[in-house]
């Protein structure tokens, strides 16, 4: 496991006074939370509560409106210097996001590349692995997600569940220290959800990658999370260990939400 060399004592992910607006619509309002190294945090809440936006901010797919996010102690999008809020340049941003992997709801595999090419593209061209090293690594990961037989297939020849397992292998090929899972089973047919969650549970058990998870699979959330955060209208209404949140939620909104989804 690659060590987080920058500031080992600081939280792995830190949201400080984070504000995100889309036009006049405030999605996240003054949000503060941290994720420790190796921690698995699941975000639950009604749609439109800003869960996915949090993941997209960490991946720098969305621009922060206000506040700061630190990853491994390093400023991700904006830095505070001498009381001023300065934009972190794209190169520096990419350096930080190299340690972050993301799996998307709609897989987003590259259709012009085979399964294997999808996985080795970034290790070869971002991490600088030789092609042979990257292929060996990719084959190992494909084995792990149960897709070893399909390395030369085109993504369009695979089922949704298979595509998502390849996407997971692709994210892991970059040795991420943080993995963002954005509703990774929501686009799948019900019978394919299990194979993807199974793979993720194995990864959660075998590695100490920090994870931020947005999911509607409450059983999965219960099994893999160290902490569950309930969101509504852009703020945390309740957080705690999954056993507590799922069995004895304190907040009325959490209770209503869980009653609706369980």
């Amino acid at each position: 496991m690659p060590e987080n060399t920058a500031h080992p004592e600081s939280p792995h992910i830190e949201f400080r006074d984070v504000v995100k607006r889309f036009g006049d619509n405030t999605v996240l309002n003054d949000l503060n939370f941290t994720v420790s190294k190796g921690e698995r945090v699941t975000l639950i809440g009604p749609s439109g509560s800003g869960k996915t936006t949090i993941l997209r901010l960490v991946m720098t797919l969305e621009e922060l409106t206000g506040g700061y996010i630190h990853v491994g102690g390093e400023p991700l999008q904006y830095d505070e210097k001498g009381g001023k809020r300065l934009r972190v340049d794209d190169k520096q941003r990419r350096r930080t996001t190299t340690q972050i992997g993301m799996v998307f709801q709609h897989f987003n595999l590259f259709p012009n590349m085979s399964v294997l090419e999808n996985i080795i593209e970034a290790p070869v061209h971002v991490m600088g692995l030789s092609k042979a090293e990257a292929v060996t690594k990719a084959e190992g990961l494909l084995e792990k997600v149960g897709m070893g037989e399909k390395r030369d297939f085109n993504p369009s020849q695979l089922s949704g569940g298979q595509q998502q397992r390849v996407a997971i292998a692709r994210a892991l090929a970059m040795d991420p220290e943080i993995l963002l899972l954005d509703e990774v089973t929501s686009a799948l047919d019900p019978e394919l959800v299990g194979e993807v969650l199974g793979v993720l549970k194995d990864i959660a058990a075998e590695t100490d990658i920090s994870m931020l998870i947005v999911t509607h699979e409450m059983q999965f959330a219960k099994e893999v999370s160290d902490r569950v955060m309930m969101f509504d209208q852009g703020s945390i209404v309740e957080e705690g260990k999954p056993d507590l949140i799922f069995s004895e939620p304190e907040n009325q909104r959490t209770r209503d939400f869980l009653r609706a989804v369980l």
Partner: protein
Amino acid sequence: MDGVIGFFEQLGPNLQILGERMPLIVEGIWVTAQATALGGLLALAISIVFGVAQVAKYSVVRIIARIFVEFFRGTSLVVQLFWLAFVLPQLPYPFGWQLAPLAIGVLALGLNYGAYGAEVVRGSIGSVPKGQYEAISALSLSPVRGMFRIIIPQAWALMIPSLSNLWIQLLKGSAIVSTVLLYDLYFRIEQVRDQTGTWFAFLFALLAYYLIAWVIVILMNALEVRAKHKIGRGPALSKSWGTLFRSPGSVITEGSLFRAPISGGGKA
């Protein structure tokens, strides 16, 4: 001897004249083919360079590309042709160049149709799903690498039908290069017209251009089938020779009202 009746009365002798003139006509076809092929290649290169430049990160690049496209798209092909043929040589040293007629034709066709093509390329790049850009970003691939390895190969399949249309238009537009002393197909047919009459000569011209256009259609259809197969949409080229003889971009649109999807393309 003109008119419909004249056309039929003179058909035999006219065909004979056409036969006698055939070596010159073939030369003309060759010139037209060269202008179309080279002009098309130049237009393709310009399309890609200026299409990509219009989505570049730096606004200076975007603005320059935009001005280029607007200029060559907005000014007449005939004027561009005459400018290259008659104004350019008069410019003071070292800008004054007397280009060969073929070079003038290729340059004018390439610049003019390249400006249209750049818009096609820009549009196709914009049509690649947003998730692809996000995956590039999530894997920390550089935007330039992502553009050339992932976005453009997908956009290529989308842009071929429109580029195919543009290329056919370029072929037909190439008829005006005869105005700058390039002895192309149209010029040779004009010569024949003196002896055979308008009806016969222009009917032959229509047919000749149509046949050349058909070659372009088949070639571009093959490219399209191949490009679509490469991004997992549709069968391999080796399995779909029959689809080459169709109008540009008319197949493999699933859910189309008028044409069933080709078997083997996409899953249910």
